[in-house]
């Protein structure tokens, strides 16, 4: 329990001290995770909506597969991306290994299934409610998918937060493809892993508290915005 109280003190010192190294790590974490969730939404939302309003042979298998991919082990994804981006691998020419870009790639692969699978469910529920009316109006499937995505936007906020949380919290993929290089690819989670392995547990926990505080703050902000908008639109 001493470690915990030490950790809280450490966390307070870190935040108050505005240590430039800490700031650098926090900003990189945000940059990587926010970029990843943005890309995942770009790919995942249309994909989820498209599956929700479509019918095609093997659809049920696709849905099951998509849901299962929400549980992709980060370490496995990290390893696969590493093999892809390594100089000895097919995309080695790009020189992307051990860069933040590689981390974004790995995290996007991890979160896109989450965004797609959950938005598929939400849009499909809405489709069940709206299907007859939208078809009556002559709406196309593509148009319906887009209309429904906008209509369920409040539920999508929660999905986006879930995806972001997953990205901000994971360490297995980014440590493999990023290499945890000081000043280049060290993010909050990999820094925590490093301090833990160095035995500096109060510092590691302190960093953990800082990370939790940031994620909590983002969630609170999103919640407030969503509530306000939802009250307006029902």
């Amino acid at each position: 329990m001493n470690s915990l109280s030490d950790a809280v003190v450490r966390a307070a010192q870190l935040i108050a001290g505005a240590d430039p190294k800490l700031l650098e790590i926090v900003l990189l974490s945000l940059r990587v995770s926010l970029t990843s969730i943005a890309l995942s939404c770009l790919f995942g939302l249309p994909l989820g909506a498209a599956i929700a309003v479509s019918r095609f042979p093997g659809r049920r298998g696709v849905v099951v597969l998509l849901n299962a991919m929400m549980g992709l082990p980060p370490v496995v994804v990290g390893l696969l991306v590493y093999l892809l981006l390594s100089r000895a691998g097919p995309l080695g020419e790009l020189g992307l290994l051990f860069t933040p870009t590689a981390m974004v790639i790995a995290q996007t692969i991890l979160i896109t299934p989450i965004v797609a699978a959950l938005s598929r469910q939400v849009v499909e529920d809405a489709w069940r409610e709206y299907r007859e009316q939208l078809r009556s109006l002559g709406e196309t499937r593509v148009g319906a998918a887009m209309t429904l995505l906008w209509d369920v936007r409040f539920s999508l906020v929660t999905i986006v937060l879930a995806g972001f949380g997953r990205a901000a919290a994971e360490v297995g993929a980014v440590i493999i493809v990023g290499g945890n290089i000081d000043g280049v690819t060290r993010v909050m989670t990999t820094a925590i892993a490093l301090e833990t392995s160095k035995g500096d547990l109060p510092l590691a926990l302190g960093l953990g508290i800082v990370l939790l505080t940031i994620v909590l703050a983002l969630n609170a902000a999103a919640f407030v915005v969503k509530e306000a908008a939802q009250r307006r639109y029902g």
Partner: protein
Amino acid sequence: MTNAQAAMHGPRSLLPLRIESVVFEAGGRRIIDRVSLTLEVGTRSVLVGANGAGKSVLLRLCHGLLRPTSGAIAWNAPEFPGEPRRQAMVFQRPVLLRRSALGNVAYALAVAGVRSPEREARAHEALRKVGLEALAASPARVLSGGEQQRVALARAWALRPEVLFLDEPTANLDPGATHEIEGVIRAMHAAGTKIVLVTHNLGQARRLGDEVLFLHQGRLLERTPADRFFQRPASAEAAQFLEGELPW
């Protein structure tokens, strides 16, 4: 044919709609059993019948939401995919998007290919016609049941459909709201739209119907002008139905 009807229904009108020996089966049951009829311009057609008689299914077959198991549903000049729809449907529950009342009506017009600013102008006009101009900017889903159904009707009105199908539009509404909705339906008919209405409310059927189509266990048993149907129905089943429905 009135002037308004003639203006709306030229030679390339949707109507008359010819329904020939249509059968609809689902889940191992035959829900519509060889129904044949023709729907013409002008007459307000009301479908009545007991629960499970197949009224809603027949409506959806006509509107194209369901495909018949066998038989033919042939419009005079049919619509093609990609074209703006020339028929509309109002459901028992108003299905409105999470937008303003105006937004909902404008959405329907956008799907029909109408561009701004004509879109907003027509949407405003439609809301005015149903008496909801003041609530145009309100989120549609926070309106009362009657107001929401009026938005749904405004949405249909804005499209200027040749045929309007209504599936128990006032089943969930109080008498005041019902009265308002019936007023809008009358106005749309006066503007030339063909009305096909399914209702349990026999008073409404009498108020709004020109002809009554009586469905029983998936078969069209009777087609009679409205005033005669309620006094002297031709079939025994219709008589029983009326007896059961009429409050003592």
